[in-house]
């Protein structure tokens, strides 16, 4: 473990923020007040946080339809996110994007994406910018197991290798694409596929923050030092349905309950850090309280915020008209 206490505190705070954010969005969605399609990241926190802990605002990530976790891990404002999800004028995208399109380019967050496989090509571009402009930055595409079958993902991997880009492709394999098991839809696997492009790859247990953090460190260091692209195959699980409203009948009846009990990344993190005596219960509890308060505030703020108005409909299509 190369992480200091501050790192650990930050990691825990972020993972916890994602978890509470998602559990709360789940509840708020049930009230009927959140519009549209919402895909929750709960259960997968160690991936986004384990990886993004190595990044700064110079680095870019591109996310998926399941983007809240990546946004939070990359430093997007949590209140602005919640307002966005509620479709409010003070949302990160002024209420025009919603859950599937949260972005903050000033933090290097290139957007959640409603198109499966939409992100990998974009990340080649951000990596090219970093390389051409000499920013020292890297760019990371998060894709699901489902997205790992999309042509754009393969093309981007080959391009990143041929152009020798500081790009990393993280396949977050949560076992399902909608109701379809990755054991059926993905022939071969992400590590073998990377080998097909001569790209170094690692498989990692995505419930284990420390394991993720470590393989990400290697890949990011390689990218930063001109060593080209990498692939990470992160095995993990989502706690909620594909989207809010999914009855999850394709899963085993006790599947998520068991996962929450045995594989929860937050529980594992806390246990391991406590055991090693690196942080104390009080520190965790304080973060828990902070996070609860923050999310409460985010929700009440979002609910109270004004919705966008007619004057907003026609703006932001072009920079110049």
């Amino acid at each position, binding site marked *: 473990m190369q992480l200091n206490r501050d790192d650990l505190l930050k990691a825990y705070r972020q993972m916890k923020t994602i978890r509470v954010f998602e559990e709360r969005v789940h509840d708020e969605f049930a009230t009927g007040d959140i519009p549209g399609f919402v895909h929750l990241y709960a259960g997968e926190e160690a991936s986004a946080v384990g990886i993004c802990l190595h990044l700064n605002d110079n680095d870019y990530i591109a996310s998926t339809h399941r983007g809240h976790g990546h946004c939070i891990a990359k430093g997007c404002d949590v209140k602005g996110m919640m307002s966005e999800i509620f479709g*409010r004028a003070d949302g990160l995208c002024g209420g025009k994007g919603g859950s599937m399109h949260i972005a903050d380019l000033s933090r290097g967050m290139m957007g959640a994406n409603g198109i499966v496989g939409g992100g990998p090509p974009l990340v080649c571009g951000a990596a090219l910018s970093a390389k051409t402009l000499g920013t020292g930055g890297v760019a990371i595409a998060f894709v699901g197991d489902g997205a790992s079958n999309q042509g754009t993902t393969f093309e981007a991997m080959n391009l990143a290798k041929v152009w020798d880009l500081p790009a990393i492709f993280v396949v977050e394999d949560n076992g399902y694409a909608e109701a379809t098991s990755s054991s059926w839809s993905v022939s071969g696997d992400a590590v073998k596929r990377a080998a097909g492009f001569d790209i170094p790859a690692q498989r990692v247990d995505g419930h284990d923050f420390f394991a993720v953090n470590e393989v990400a460190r290697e890949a990011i260091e390689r990218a930063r030092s001109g060593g080209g692209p990498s692939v990470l195959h992160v095995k993990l699980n989502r706690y909620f349905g594909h989207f809010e409203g999914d009855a999850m009948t394709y899963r085993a009846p006790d599947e998520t309950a068991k996962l929450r009990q045995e594989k929860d990344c937050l529980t594992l993190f806390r246990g391991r850090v406590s055991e090693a005596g690196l942080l104390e219960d009080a520190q965790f509890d304080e973060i828990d309280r902070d996070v609860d308060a923050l999310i409460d505030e985010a929700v009440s703020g979002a609910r109270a915020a004004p919705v966008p108005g007619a004057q907003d409909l026609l703006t932001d299509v072009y920079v110049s008209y």
Partner: protein
Amino acid sequence: MAKKSMRQAINEALASEMRRDPRVVIMGEDISGGMGAPGEDDAWGGPLGVTKGLMPEFGRGRVLDTPITESAFVGAAAGAAASGLRPVAELMFVDFMGVCFDQIFNQAAKFRYMFGGKAVTPLVIRTMFGAGLRAASQHSQCLYPIFTHIPGLKVVIPSSAYEAKGLLIQAIRDDDPVIFFEHKAMYDDEAEVPDEAYTIPFGEANITREGDNVTVVAFGRMVQLANQVADKLAKDGIECTVIDPRTTSPLDEDTILEEVEATGRLVIVDEASPRCNMATDISALVAQRAFGALKAPIRMVTPPHTPVPFAGDLEDLYIPKPEQIEAAIREIAA
């Protein structure tokens, strides 16, 4: 006749054609659902349950779930159509056409012409379109003008559950590539739908309402709005003819021209983005071929030239509204 939802009407059309012709297969992401998963079979029946029950009846050999790989499976449907099957592929949202358009417009649509009339490609692509579900910019588009632009494709937009069943059966029996647009906000809309199979021919518009003052042409969900507005205006003595072209390609030009000849006034209601859309297409048809009959400017009711916004109030402002249709009609009826 029983009242049925558009969801059920489409499901019945698929089931009846699959029973009738063993060459009909369907494919798409989670159209059955649960492949390789530990839980239930047929767990989804498509994201909105439209294809539910077909896998249990017809088996996995004819109800083919796919990986997320639109180019490959839409192209596979095209290739299968050219080699003996009659596939119905589901492109979940038409917004996803950008990852597989080549297989539709350069392959399936052009086979027959490029190959000198020797190919027959009985392909149907079912797809969801339209705004209203707060699904934001990448899941709310119409895009049928793009498909209408392409020679070799037929483009169908049903305006009710009844229309959906008859037009989809026609599409499956048709020997050309057809793209079939289902408005995502209409799956629960009900209509009288016969249990048995029936077809509605392509290129024959439906006149849903007759009136002497103004001709209104509308597409898909907009037909409902146009009829509502026409009912309301009738009380004020403004009588509208409402035309549902049913298919934008082929287009029943004659019916549109005849009705405009009769009323001399035309409003077109199109939920698609305003540039190079069906409203402009029909405006142009009429300005070229029924100009002499026109007594007033043509009025187009469309959304603005913006992506579809997420927030509910913005999206409601975006989508053409009855009040806009009413205003357009009143303006030229006067």
